[in-house]
């Protein structure tokens, strides 16, 4: 712990420097010069704060998370904007200004108690409490408190819940329309045809037979419609075999050659599997429609608590994730599971869409046979 204290004393020099630079550059943003400086000093500040978070976590024996907002693939200005809006950036500054002088005193005290030798006894008993106090101080400023975290979580959950409800309402409307225009209409026609056949049975058996044959074809068409509806709700291979096989089956049906690779073959919970499947299907549909690609690939990797799917193509790039409702829908649907979507699509390609979903993989489990397609 004294080692940490010594390191903290040394780190207070760059900390002071960073605070001054941040403050000056922050004001200079008005005349643009501040922007490149901040692009360097803010990450440095974050690195420094992270070092202190790790030390505090070590001393306190409990994790001190680094709760910065993700910047994704935003450009320099975009990143600055996200940083400026991130409350943690400002807490970092407050920590540099307020906590450091006080905390530095504590760390310095620990070092001095040891170095002065005669105060060795005081060091022996004092180092623990002092370092815990300093770490608590760091933690208080460098990470959000329980209430703040819960507030942020509630905000996210409210938003994603609304999106999920909108999404499922829209899906139900689509299914209702598909059934109404498809199978239901055909069954009405079928009833009519059968009625005609019954009517003709005695008078014109030959014609009745022809009409019955027509009726059989109509049942085939109605079943075809129902199969399409079922595929849109929950694809059969996904139910039977899980994500990996379902994506392989999907890739077989596309005009574009798609290679499905990766080590991830676990079963996930049904809603997550379904969301990721339809997300990948949407990505591949976009590749087919817009990318002018010769090949596409889907790579599934992950471990016990995170699934990562990369959908790539060798097309002309320049895809704008904000442009189509489809991709925004994908991002929203994944957000319901705390999943994320990142798009990298430089002009000239390749386009890479990375989907990440936290997951607790479930082993293959028994599904009710009422789920027959």
């Amino acid at each position, binding site marked *: 712990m004294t080692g940490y204290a010594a390191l903290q004393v040394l780190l207070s020099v760059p900390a002071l420097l960073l605070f001054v630079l941040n403050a000056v550059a922050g004001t200079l943003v008005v005349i643009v010069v501040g922007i490149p400086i901040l692009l360097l000093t803010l990450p440095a500040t974050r690195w420094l704060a992270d070092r202190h978070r790790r030390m505090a976590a070590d001393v306190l024996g409990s994790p001190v998370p680094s709760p910065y907002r993700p910047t994704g693939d935003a450009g320099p200005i975009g990143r600055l904007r996200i940083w400026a809006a991130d409350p943690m950036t400002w807490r970092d500054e407050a920590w540099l200004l307020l906590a450091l002088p006080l905390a530095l005193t504590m760390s310095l005290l620990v070092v001095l108690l040891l170095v002065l030798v005669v105060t060795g006894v005081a060091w022996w008993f004092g180092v623990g409490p002092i370092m815990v106090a300093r770490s608590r101080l760091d933690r208080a400023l460098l990470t959000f408190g329980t209430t703040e975290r819960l507030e942020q979580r509630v905000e996210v959950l409210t938003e994603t819940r609304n999106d999920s409800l909108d999404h499922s309402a829209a899906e139900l409307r689509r299914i209702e329309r598909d059934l109404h225009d498809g199978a239901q209409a055909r069954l009405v026609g079928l009833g009519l045809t059968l009625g005609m056949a019954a009517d003709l049975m005695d008078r014109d058996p030959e014609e009745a037979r022809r009409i019955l044959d027509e009726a*059989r074809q109509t*049942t*085939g068409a109605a*079943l*075809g419609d129902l*199969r399409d509806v*079922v*595929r849109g709700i929950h694809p*059969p*291979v996904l*139910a*039977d*075999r899980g994500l990996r*096989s379902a994506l*392989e*089956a999907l890739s*077989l*049906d*596309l*005009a574009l050659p798609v290679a499905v690779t990766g080590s991830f073959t676990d079963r996930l919970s049904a809603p997550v599997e379904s969301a990721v499947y339809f997300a990948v299907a949407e990505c591949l549909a976009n590749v087919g429609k817009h990318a002018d690609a010769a090949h596409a690939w889907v790579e599934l990797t992950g471990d016990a608590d995170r699934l990562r799917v990369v959908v790539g193509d060798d097309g002309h790039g320049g895809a704008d994730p904000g442009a189509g409702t489809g991709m925004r829908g994908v991002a929203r649907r994944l957000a319901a599971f705390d999943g994320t979507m990142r798009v990298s699509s430089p002009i000239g390609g390749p386009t890479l869409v990375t989907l990440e979903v936290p997951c607790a993989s479930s082993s*293959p489990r*028994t*599904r*009710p*046979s*009422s*789920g*027959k*397609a």
Partner: protein
Amino acid sequence: MRVVLAEDQTLLREGLIRLLESHGFEVVAAAEDAESLAQALADPQTADVALLDVRLPPTGTDEGLRAAVDLRRRRPGFPVLVLSQYVERIYARELLADGEGGVGYLLKERVGDVREFVEALRRVAGGGTVLDPEVVAAVMARQQPVERLTPREREVLALMAEGRSNAAIAAGLVVTEKAVAKHTNNIFAKLDLPPAPDDNRRVLAVLAWLGL
């Protein structure tokens, strides 16, 4: 001809038994789940062909399909006709992967056309390959690496995949049987298939066409 049947929906199972028996088949076992199917197939010598539903209890996923693949591993070439509410190319590939023939994969509703269905079951039992027109259409829609084939040859190959004989293909395309034979020989040559009995080459041609 002796049939082992597996279908969990009572109505359809009873209907199939009646249909098969009225067409001269003998149903030696009618299983309603994976376990009783396994018992019925423990000794395949007792049957000539198996007619299986893909989804069976207990999990209602792909038990029937797995039973079919397993059965053919134990007894290569044992004729199996798989029925399902939906057809998937990925499953067709799995069924055909051993290249032995004697495989059918049809939508359940094809049972409605009784004569065609019984004919398909006989062709499978005789070592032929019968794929559902819907699988065939899906493959047709996607241009496969058999682009070397002429449009006419692709048509012939598609009908071959549905399990039609040369005579039936000739009737369907309104050409002579001799012309069909010429097309099939061209297909075999273009797909680099080695000389073999005609039935086996037909299976191999379909496999190549499915992208295996």
